[in-house]
């Protein structure tokens, strides 16, 4: 469903050219959930944005559902790939009601029947009719993230891209959103590509996981391998240790942080 072959993404030109992602290859089968983990600046979000078509890739091939992605994308392709962003406080238009936010993509793609579609999408993400004519500031963080998910789902995409969908949320709300994503994936046969810095979150939702650092895909592993600790790359091992809580003996105070 998603195939990346030696994809590189660069920002800037000439001497100031920075490779944010270099030579990334991965394959996600239909209905699978694939996770990308890494620290800030590792290039994980860059890869996601390249798949979404928000930034152009410099080299390599991106193939979605059998079609190679070029410079411009057709409306049909854009409809097929939808994205949910990290911060539901920043990704919803503050001056539009939930109804307007959800009607917009329907209008853009000329799907018609907006009223019914909005109602269905809201029901699907567990929001009621009372939320439909509210503004984002009248909703909690979890409800906002549900609206953002509904906005992606309303186009009936086949691929859902998730950029840290729960990192701005409290633990109890995170559980609700993760459960919602699990259910939506099952009900709609969605293919998911998710980015997170939280190993436990990503291993909860995804079967296969790619570990990124400094723009490179270091290791392809699985949730099971992470759980049993049978990962090979030293960086992955370090990430795994860091995720198991604070242990003064494993911290190197003087190590230079990864840039």
């Amino acid at each position, binding site marked *: 469903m998603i195939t990346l072959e030696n994809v590189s993404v660069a920002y800037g030109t000439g001497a100031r050219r920075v490779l944010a992602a270099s030579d990334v290859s991965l394959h996600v089968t239909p209905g699978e959930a694939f996770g990308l983990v890494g620290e800030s600046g590792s290039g994980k979000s860059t890869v996601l944005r390249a798949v979404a078509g928000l930034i152009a890739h410099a080299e390599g091939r991106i193939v979605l559902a059998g079609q190679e992605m070029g410079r411009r994308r057709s409306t049909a392709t854009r409809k097929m790939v939808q994205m949910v962003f990290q911060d539901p406080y920043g990704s919803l238009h503050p001056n539009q009601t939930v109804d307007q936010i959800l009607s917009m993509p329907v209008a853009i793609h000329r799907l018609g029947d907006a009223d019914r579609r909005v109602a269905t999408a809201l029901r699907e993400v567990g929001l009621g009719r009372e939320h439909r004519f509210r503004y984002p500031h009248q909703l909690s963080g979890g409800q906002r993230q549900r609206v953002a998910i509904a906005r992606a789902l309303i186009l009936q995409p086949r691929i859902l891209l998730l950029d840290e969908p729960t990192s701005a949320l*409290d633990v*109890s709300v*995170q559980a609700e959103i993760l*459960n919602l994503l699990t259910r939506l994936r099952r009900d709609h046969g969605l293919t998911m590509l998710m980015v997170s810095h939280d190993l*436990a979150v990503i291993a909860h939702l995804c079967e296969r996981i790619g570990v990124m650092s400094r723009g490179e895909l270091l290791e392809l592993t699985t949730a099971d391998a992470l759980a049993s600790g049978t990962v090979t790359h030293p960086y992955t091992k370090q990430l795994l240790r860091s995720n198991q*809580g604070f242990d003064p003996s494993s911290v*190197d105070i003087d190590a230079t942080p990864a840039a």
Partner: protein
Amino acid sequence: MSDAPLLTVRNLRVVYPSDEGDFRAVRNVSFTLGRERLGIVGESGSGKSTTGRAIMGLVPEPGRVEADLLRLGDTDLRTLNERGFRKLRGKRIAMVLQDPKYSLDPVMTVGRQIAETHRHHFRSSAKQARAAALEMLEAVHIRDPERVYTQYPHQVSGGMGQRIMIAMMLIAGPDLLIADEPTSALDVTVQHQVLAIMDEQVRKRGMGLILISHNLHLVSSFCDRVLVMYAGQIVESCKAAHLSEAQHPYTRGLLAALPELGHRRLVLPQLQRDPAWLEDVAPLTDATP
């Protein structure tokens, strides 16, 4: 742990008046702190940050802070005015906030900011303050203090920024450090470095530390003791190492809702909030031990 507590808080209340009656952000919070590392956990809006701010005298008008007892060593914090608090802050209590990007002055080099704190509290000369600041930067494991001294906040990374904050907070030698989500904006590996530095300094100086965080794993692995807050109250208090055996349904619910490596569940148990958790817990009286 030595005899007299560093900080005694008994029935602390923080109230914000509003049109629909008073909003009680913190309700009858009581604890004592020795030379130890105390964690306060809870979700957003639980009152954990407000508790920290009340101790610092940083609750803004029209908010009201009331307590039966609020003592730092032999100082009664309830009677202090703004002037009194200003003498105390930095010198005896210090606070590290979440994002160094916002808590450092963007138009002053980091060295000058640290030195300023020293000059303010010790009336030291520029030269003495500079020497003290450089020494402090070295203490927080900054490899090239001379270079960092002359940098502006936007030129340093998040982890470095937080080390600088810690240096600035500790330069006047406070007894108590309140760290409010000090590492939430940082990557995990950097997070642990910053915590290790904080831990090292707190131990070396024999200080008390209050770590406020939403991260249950972090608090339980870093602190000695944990207070769990919900809707402005402490619902549970336990040894940090025993957090996994917590009794209160709220704490248990939070722990269960966390996804866990090696224990994959198809559906995560969602927290069912019980209205009974909102009921007032009994305030401490002289009779209660």
